[in-house]
């Protein structure tokens, strides 16, 4: 079953359930189902294509979708992430912070590639979005072509690292010219921690006769590093050739069909399965509540003598629901405490990392004399170090947040029916925050040019000459004699030296102030981002569990009310109501059966 069809069937099941509960005056349950349906429509599976640069990432994406969506050049590399997703009509848009600007299709390369002369306006583009009608993307698959990593210490690498937390799967691209290098394995190890669904792709298998040997070596490296990931050897140029000539044999040889199968079966299907489970769960939970209300009423209507008994049972059930609310107080406490702890921990972690950078940077400033000479290198280093620190902090925060969600859900485990809400972190990660921070610039300060040096020197010399000359005049020498001239020269030199030292010290102090301000900015922005992320997580969890507890309680109250009302009703009214209830129950039962048939495993 294709992911699209599966998705459609789920939407239909939800719609059926909504019609079934119509007229039961439960707008809260209807709203819950509406949310479920919206989530289904918006289901996106993000696959990150990462790797060192010039390994053929863009070629791989092009080969997968069968269209030249990512520019491929011999020399220049991809500079901004490109999101390739499905749409009925092709379109390209660039996303700059929050605004989304559509651009003509042929302008793509201008925005997506690095250019030798960097222009300011391109730098702020956070991503390029390409939408094209392709069957592989129909199931909500989004391929993200990332700029080459170029080592983990680089800003680019840090940004990719942060993006990992929001990815459903990661494809690590490395070409068949050589086995994995140390930085690539390091990257894989970190990627595994942030996103468990990782596969490796060995590109350019057509070009290298020894690719099988490289494949074995790579598998060996993965096994030794304890990384469980499939390796797919592919050849994008053969795939491309196969697409243009329609040669099926060539297409099979290119290795792409296997990769596509992997994406469909392991990535999309897994995401689809998750979506299916949570949707069916929602539908069943809603139906169960409605059915239990109707059941209780039916019993009461059928047998007025047992009404008191039913009311007793229902009261007991309400007490249970209240207990759940009470328990909800406990989980809310866990959640609140957890978030507070997490906030403190993450803030501490960030500050600790940044303080270490500040310490090192200040030491470097102190040791290296005049900072204006090494300012460019210095700022690059600081920016890289802070970017790496911020993304490490972000990844860690995300992992901790997931762990917290698991712990909160443990409180509900006794019920056994509560699924964790999907915790997709939609925040863009620290790279965005870092981008909005003003660059480190230091005022040019006092230029110590020749004119000023001369003036300083003359001033010192004049003072020296005058000082010694005055003594001289006391014992009868003239103001201008060889000794005073010598003293003047010495003093002039000393003043000049002092002045130079003073200026260097001043520049060092200025640089330190700029550094501290920058680190402060980073702490502020990144800290805010982490806190927002946590608050988002907290809100999602709280709303999810509170809504469930409330709905349960409301259902029980409804049943109680219905049972109490039935005592006053006449026989004829009862019969009519019973028939109504029976009809409704039958309808609900049909919907329930339909929905449970959709569960994976039940569908056989």
């Amino acid at each position, binding site marked *: 079953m294709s992911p699209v069809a599966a998705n459609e069937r789920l939407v239909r099941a939800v719609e059926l359930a909504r019609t079934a509960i119509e007229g039961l005056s439960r707008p809260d349950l209807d709203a819950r189902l509406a949310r479920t349906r919206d989530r289904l429509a918006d289901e996106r599976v993000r696959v990150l294509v990462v790797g*060192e*640069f*010039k390994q053929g990432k863009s070629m791989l994406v092009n080969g997968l979708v069968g269209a030249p969506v990512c520019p491929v050049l*011999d*020399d220049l590399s991809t500079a901004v992430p490109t999101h390739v997703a499905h749409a009925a009509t092709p379109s390209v848009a660039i996303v700059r912070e929050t605004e989304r600007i559509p651009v003509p299709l042929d302008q793509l390369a201008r925005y997506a590639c690095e250019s*030798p002369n960097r222009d300011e306006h391109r730098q702020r583009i956070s991503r390029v979005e390409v939408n094209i009608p392709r069957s592989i993307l129909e199931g909500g698959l989004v391929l993200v072509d990332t700029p080459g990593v*170029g*080592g983990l*210490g*680089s800003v680019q690498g840090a940004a990719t690292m942060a993006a990992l937390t929001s990815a459903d799967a990661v494809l690590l691209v490395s070409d068949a*010219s*050589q*086995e*994995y*290098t*140390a*930085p690539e*394995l390091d990257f894989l190890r970190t990627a595994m921690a942030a996103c468990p669904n990782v596969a490796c792709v060995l590109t*350019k*298998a*057509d*070009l*290298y*006769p*020894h*690719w099988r*040997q*490289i494949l074995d*070596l790579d598998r060996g*490296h993965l096994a030794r590093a304890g990384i469980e990931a499939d390796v797919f050897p592919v*050849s994008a*140029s*053969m795939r491309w*050739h196969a697409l243009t000539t329609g040669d099926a044999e*060539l297409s099979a*040889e290119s290795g792409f069909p296997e990769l596509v199968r992997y994406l469909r079966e392991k990535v999309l299907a897994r995401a689809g399965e998750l979506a299916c489970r949570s949707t069916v769960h929602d539908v069943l939970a809603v139906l169960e509540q409605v059915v239990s209300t109707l059941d209780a009423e039916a019993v009461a209507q059928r047998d007025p003598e047992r009404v008191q008994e039913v009311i007793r049972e229902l009261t007991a059930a309400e007490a249970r629901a209240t207990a759940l609310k009470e328990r909800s107080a406990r989980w809310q406490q866990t959640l609140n405490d957890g978030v507070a702890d997490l906030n403190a921990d993450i803030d501490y972690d960030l500050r600790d990392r940044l303080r270490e950078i500040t310490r090192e940077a200040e030491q470097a400033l102190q040791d290296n004399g005049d900072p204006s000479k090494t300012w460019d290198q210095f700022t690059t280093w600081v920016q890289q170090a802070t970017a790496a620190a911020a993304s490490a902090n972000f990844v860690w925060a995300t992992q901790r947040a997931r762990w917290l969600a698991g712990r909160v859900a443990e409180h509900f485990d006794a019920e056994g029916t509560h699924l964790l809400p999907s915790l997709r972190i939609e925040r863009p990660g620290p790279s965005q925050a870092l981008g909005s921070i003003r660059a480190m610039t230091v005022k040019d300060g006092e230029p110590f040019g*020749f004119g000023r040096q001369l003036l300083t020197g003359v001033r010192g010399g004049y003072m020296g000459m005058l000082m010694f000359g005055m003594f001289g005049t006391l014992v009868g020498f003239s103001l201008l004699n060889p000794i005073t001239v010598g003293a003047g020269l010495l003093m002039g030199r000393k003043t000049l030296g002092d002045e130079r030292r003073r200026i260097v010290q001043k520049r060092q102090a200025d640089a330190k102030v700029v550094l501290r301000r920058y680190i402060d900015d980073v702490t502020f922005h990144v800290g805010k981002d982490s806190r927002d992320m946590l608050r988002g997580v907290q809100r999602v969890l709280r709303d999810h569990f509170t809504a469930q507890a409330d709905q349960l309680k409301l259902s029980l109250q409804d049943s109680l009310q219905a049972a109490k009302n039935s005592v006053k009703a006449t026989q004829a009214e009862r019969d009519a109501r019973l028939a109504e209830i029976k009809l409704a129950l039958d309808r609900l039962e049909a919907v329930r059966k339909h929905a449970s048939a959709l569960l994976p495993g039940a569908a056989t």
Partner: protein
Amino acid sequence: MTQHLITSVRHLLHHALSAYRTNPRATAALGHQLHRLDEPLRVAIAGKVKAGKSTLLNALVGEAIAATDAGECTRVVTWYRAGATPRVVLQPLDGPPVPLPVVRTGGVLEIDMGGVPAERVDRLVVDWPAQSLREMTLIDTPGVASIDAANSARTTRFLEPDDETPTEADAVVYLMRHLHVADAQFLESFRDQGVARATAVNTVAAISRADEIAGGRVDAMFSARAIATRYRSEPALRGLCQNVVAVAGLLAFTGRTLRQDEFAAVKALAELPRPELEAALLSADRFQRTSDPALVGRFGLFGIRLATSLIRQGAASPSALAGELVARSGLHELQRVLRVQFAERRDLLKARSAVLALDRMVRADGDPYRLAPELERILTATHEFAELRLLAALRSGAVTLPKPMAVDAQRLLGDEGGAPAVRLGLEPHADRADLRRAASIALRRWQGNAENPVLGRRAADACRVLVRTCEGILAGT
């Protein structure tokens, strides 16, 4: 001029040797340096793993003496020196050198270290009778950023030794596939390693495996050259190395060792109908199914594409094809750069290594014999060192001159070659009168520049160095 320099450095070393005679460690080190002055220039080939270091070394020598493989291959630093007879010696970290058997299988030199683990080996020394090794000793190093950290460490230790032992290589050819962070870091640390005061002067970067750029298309070499040109003007790289060239090591090696049977095989391929050949060349796998699998290992897909089209264009004999292959591989350009930038400056680079080693020793062991002033005199008073320093400063941007002046200055300092005619920008065969005329014009121009009040102090100093250079050329012609 440089002869004089070598003599005075040798003199100084002898002086130091007698001064330090009670210190056996110093005596050994000094003896080593003296010996080194008479040896050919040492050029290390460094780069990331699988950058094609061993393949390029084979291409430069013209024989398969360095082992190559699809996986990571070179694990110990290996020296290739000129020798009368083939000889392989293993130098362990401790203990006496061990001679190893010389085994050649299918023309490839195979070195069996006799079960000695790589971490116990300081270096392998291969003596080989080859013309190209007479000019310079080549040193093959394990790749940087290797998965096996110990391999990387061996290279780093070799090229950036601690304070105890001065650096062993006089010059470095750095191979990279694309400029990667690890490459830049490595080059930078190599520069930082006080290969003192003079910086980029003894490093040349090469874009290796250039035939694999653009997926082995026939125009791959053009792309590679364009990339090299871009890197040459890249500010990040300018300060780190002297020149960037593109070279396809495999193609060059195959060209230099092309056999008759291989020529025949390629010729047979060239005679196939074009669509059939193109279909076979879609992937290495396909090609190996229809033709001799060894062929693609020797040429690479790009090499086969190139060789067949060369034959169609009229390369009718093995020697013609071999010549064309070598010419297209960029090897000549690399050799020219090595000759101009390293070999012509051989004495200067060697003297520099020796002076730096002695300088380090004096700093470390104290200077009871007053060697420092003489050392200082050689370092500051030798005009060639001043030229090197200025050249490096110009390249790294530490000294800035207006653009046309800077180009002129770099050429005059010997950036493109040390011969007077090249320095003055004349034809290589210019006669003495032309040289003298051009030199005196240049002299007057730089004298004028040195007095120009608009230029800063450092620029003026630079102009004075150039004035002396012009004077030197005038005096020499």
